[in-house]
Structure formats: structure tokens, C-alpha cells
């Protein structure tokens, strides 16, 4: 479904991605792990051309989308929960959710919003509160909810568990699994919480200094010595 070939990306003079190859098959959950600043978020954003790939190719659903303008990407069925949530602070919760439906079928709206409210009941309670005044975790839920409103084929999650209470973290991974199995949604996931991530993921990549250094199934990576040493274990 998604295929990245030798993608490079820059922020001014910072070379953030150095030739990344990533493939995501239909119906898969793929996770990216890597240290701080490895370029995980950059990789996700580069799908949308922000920053754009300075060389390499990105193919989605058989189409080259490397140079497609940002706003046309999501219309092809990709949605993102970006790093830092990026909710619209001066809009209400409901309006934020509506923003997620800009190109969705209006007929689905009621079902979709019910689903989101069912996942995160607090959002329903706060539907007319300004999103900027939500608590950190509530904002995270809103960002996830907003991404789900467009029924994407491919869902990009950049640290979805950030700032969520443990009980919700469990919920999130459950939801991810559910979306994947029941709705066939393909998911690309970035997580610091590598345990959780690798456990739900079919496959994973390890990113280091803008390069893929390791790839394998979730279980393989979980078992890998290097991964354990670098990302899973915290020496006391």
C-alpha cells in the first residue's frame, strides 16, 4: 500500500532522513521505533510533503505521491495524528472533529462521530469546549478522534499514547488492533513505548539517524538484542 524508496528529507541544513526504504502492506500494522531525533516524525510528515522528500520516491496505492501537494494526500485516504497533536486551539471540540471530515462522505458522519465518542466519552462531554483548554491527554484523544473521522485507509499515528493515562494507553492499542482487524485499516505507528508498539505490530522498523538500521516482525524485533538494549531496557 505504501512504499518509500530512498527518501531523503531536510530541514534547512539538517539532513533528517537519509535514504529511507519503508513498505507497508494493506492490512498491516507497522511500527517505527528509534531514539529521539532519529527522524520518525519527519518520516511521517514527509508523506505529506512537509518537509518534502528531496530525493527518493513515495508510492501510495500504486501512485507516486512524492510531489503531490499536501492537501491532496489526505484525500487519497491517509490520516495522521501528528506529533504535538496540532489540534485547532480556538475551535471547539466538535469543530475540530468536523475538520477531520472535510472530504469524508457526510452520510457517515453520525456513525463516525458516535464511534469516536464511544472511544473517548470525555470528548462528547466537552463537545463545545474550546479545544485549547482541554487537558493534554484530552487533546491527544481529540487528535486521534479527528484522524479517525475521515475513515482513512492508512492511519499514521505519531506517539498516540503520549500524555495518556495508562488506562487509555491500553484502550488506544486495543482500538488500533480493532481498527485493523475489524475495519481493515492499515496503520503506521510511531511509539516510544516500544513494548506496546511491537506487540501490536505485524512488522517494525528501527530508525537511527535518519536511516533504517533494522527491520523485522514485531516478535523478531522484540527478541532482538540490539533493540532490547537500545530501546526497551532502562538501566537502573
Amino acid at each position, binding site marked *: 500500500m505504501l512504499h518509500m524508496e530512498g527518501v531523503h528529507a*531536510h*530541514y*534547512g*541544513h539538517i539532513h533528517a532522513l537519509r535514504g529511507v526504504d519503508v513498505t507497508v502492506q494493506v492490512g498491516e500494522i507497522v511500527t517505527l521505533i528509534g531514539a529521539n531525533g532519529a527522524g520518525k516524525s519527519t518520516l511521517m510528515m514527509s508523506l505529506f510533503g*512537509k*518537509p*518534502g522528500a*528531496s530525493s527518493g520516491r513515495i508510492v501510495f496505492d500504486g501512485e507516486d505521491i512524492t*510531489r503531490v501537494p499536501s492537501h491532496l494526500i489526505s484525500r487519497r485516504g491517509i490520516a495522521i495524528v501528528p506529533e504535538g497533536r496540532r489540534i485547532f486551539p480556538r475551535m471547539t471540540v466538535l469543530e475540530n472533529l468536523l475538520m477531520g471530515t472535510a472530504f469524508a462522505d457526510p452520510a457517515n458522519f453520525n456513525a463516525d462521530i458516535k464511534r469516536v465518542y464511544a472511544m473517548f466519552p470525555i470528548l462528547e462531554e466537552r463537545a463545545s469546549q474550546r479545544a485549547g483548554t482541554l487537558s493534554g491527554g484530552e487533546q491527544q484523544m481529540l487528535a486521534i478522534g479527528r484522524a479517525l473521522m475521515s475513515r482513512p485507509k492508512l492511519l499514521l499515528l505519531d506517539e498516540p499514547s503520549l500524555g495518556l493515562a495508562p488506562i487509555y494507553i491500553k484502550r488506544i492499542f486495543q482500538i488500533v488492533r480493532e481498527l485493523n482487524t475489524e475495519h481493515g485499516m492499515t496503520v503506521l505507528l510511531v511509539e516510544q513505548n516500544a513494548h506496546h508498539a511491537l506487540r501490536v505490530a505485524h512488522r517494525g522498523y528501527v530508525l537511527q539517524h535518519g536511516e533504517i538500521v533494522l527491520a523485522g516482525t514485531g516478535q523478531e524485533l522484540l527478541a532482538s538484542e540490539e533493540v532490547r538494549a537500545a530501546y526497551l531496557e532502562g538501566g537502573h
Partner: protein
Amino acid sequence: MSAVIIARHARTPAERFKDAAWVAFIALLLGIPMVGLTTVDEGGALTVQTRFGMLGAFVGASFVGRFIFRWIIDMVRNRRAAKPAVAKADRTPQAVKVIGWAVLGASIALPIVFSDNRYVIDTATTVLIYVMLGWGLNVVVGLAGLLDLGYVAFYAVGAYTYALLFSHFGWTFWEALLVAGAMAAAFGILLGYPILRLRGDYLAIVTLGFGEIIRVILVNWTELSNGPNGIGSIPRPTLFGLPFERNPAEGTQSFATFFGLEFSGMHRIVFLYYLILVLALLTNVFVARLRKLPVGRAWEALREDEIACKAMGMNVTNVKLSAFAIGAMLGGFAGVFFAARQGFISPESFTFTESATILAIVVLGGMGSQLGVVLAALVLVLLPELGRNFSEYRMLLFGTAMVLIMVWKPGGLLASREPTIRLKQAAIKGGEA
């Protein structure tokens, strides 16, 4: 957000043609009501006149212009893309230093080279006034990040303080200079106080309003300011008491008689030039040092994140007021000099346009950059001057240039920010000591 320019595929001639045709179409739309049609006054009533020839020429010119422009841009871009991107970041500080010294050298040498060209020296003096104003406003806008659209008010306060101190008490330039600076600073605080809580555009409009209030008061309070008639015969600064006059008063000496020179109007012009150069350099050193002091860093921190400043225990009120006060003081100094140079001031010199120009200098210079202000002041003062040859097209070209320069360099002419302190240098210095 900076992103590298993606090497686009080269445009085909057909694409260029289409692009130029689109521009020509827009030109046609814009041109019909303004170029193609005009109303003229005939016998007390308007009639419409058509100028289709002119419209055609305008549209044609847009087409050709766009075609060629696009072509050149593409060529330049391709060439740039072909070259590997070199990390310029490290070179910039040195380049800035070199340019800085070169500009300083040039400004010292200028009156010597153009010793009999009063226009050049006088224009250079104007540039320096704007440089000084730019540096003053830079404190408020560039460093502290407070948008001030009424900076001209402080300039006016400085100028009028001197003019009034002279006309009522006979104070000289040098005596009035500090008092006027202090007065302007006081006005800065006066303005700063009520608007501490405001942000962005709210701040902008209030400062703009403040500038207008000062101007309207100057216009109307005739008893104080002599209203629209302005205040004239303001004395020129003297060189240690030596005036620059053709006929000094009985029993005194003038610059020319003291040095046994023949009187020349140029002496004063050159003196004024060097005077403002010295004032400007002092301002520069002053602001540059402030930037490396706690206040300076506090200003920048304030610009970046006011809430974080509070969380660090910083008294945001004081930081803001100090920025306003110091910015205003520098504006006041410039005002005193302006009054002394012109010899005549009236409210017309302190309009919003002036504030806008100074702000443009700061932004165009690259917010916070000292040398940037110099370059921007040069550009913005010289452009309309050079435009004098185009008489009525002058301001049209000026406006166009302003847009183009901003588009060409959105971050300003010199956008890089030099840290106020570095760990490495500091460590080395500390090691040596």
C-alpha cells in the same frame, strides 16, 4: 519553516506559455478598470475615456515580462539545484563582520570622498537617522517582539522636547539631548503601561493610536507646539561651542573663523554627518551590549515565550517596559538630532508613514540584526531618492520594491541570529583566565 527547494522538473515552453497567458489574463482583469478606463473631468462632469491601446500594452508587457521572468527564475533555480548545497550557516557571522567593518569604513570616508557634494552627505545623514531609529525600534520589535506601529511618537517627543527647551529656555543641542532622551523614555513607559497585557495586533493598533494621539496633540495644542505652523529657527549643534555660521554674533567665533577657514555651508553638513555617525555608533554599541546583558536576553526570551519567562521568575512587566523605554529613548535622541538638523519641525514630519518606514527597515533588515538595519535603511532611503529621476513614478516603484524585496528575502536581508553567549568560547576564555 524552512524547506529546501525541491528541484522541479524543467518547465516546457508550453507550460511557460500557459503560465504567462494566465498572468496576462489577470493583468487584463486588473487593467480594465484602472488602465483601460479612466474618467476625466469635462466641463464639471465626468466622462469615461477608454485607453485600450494602453491596456493592450500593459497586458502584453505582463505576458512578456512574466515569460522572461519565469524563465530566468527557472534557470537560476536549476543552476542552484545542480550545485550541492553548501552549509552557509558557519560562514555568515564572519561575512557579517566583514560587511560591518566595510560599511563603517565607507561611512567614515564618505564626507572625504564627496567633500563638495552636499546632497550625498545630506542623504547619508538621513540614512543614519533612519539607522538610529531602526536600531531603537529593533529593541522593541526585533528583540522584544512587541509590534510597535507608533514609534514615530517618540521621535516627535525628542524633537519637540529640544525645540521647546530651546525656545523657552534657550537650551542648546547638547544640553537638551539627554533630557529629551529621558522624556522620550518616560513616554515609552507611559505607552507601555496600559498595554502590557495586549498581544500582536491589539498592540499594533494601540501603538498606532498613540502615535496619532501625539501627532494630533501637536497639531492642536497651539500654545505648546505652535500647532501646524511648527517650530522654526532651532539652532544647529555646535562643535564645543563653535557654531557653524556665516556671521557669528558679536564677540564670538564661529567654526570657520576659529580655524581660519573660509565659511562654507559644507562644514556644517559634514559636521552634522559625523555627529549622527557618532550617535549612531554609540547606539550600536549600546544596543549590542544590551543584547548580551540579562535585559537583552530577557527581551528575546519574551519574544519567544512570555509564559515560560514568567515561569522562570522573570518580571515580564519590567522587561516589556524596559524595552519600550530604551527603544523610545533612542528614538528621542534621533528626534533631537532631526530637529537640530532641520532647524524646523512641524507635526507633518511625524506621520504614520514614518512609523511604517522605520518598521519596514527593522523587518527588512531581519528582525534583531543590527547590520541588517543598516542595509535596510540604505535600501529604503536610497530607493525613493534614486527614484527622484522618475518623479511621479517614484512612489509606485518604491511600493513595488518593498513588496519584491520582502518576497525575495522573507526573513530579512540578514536573518541569521548570533547567540549572545557560547559555551565553547566561554569555556576557552574561562580556561585561559
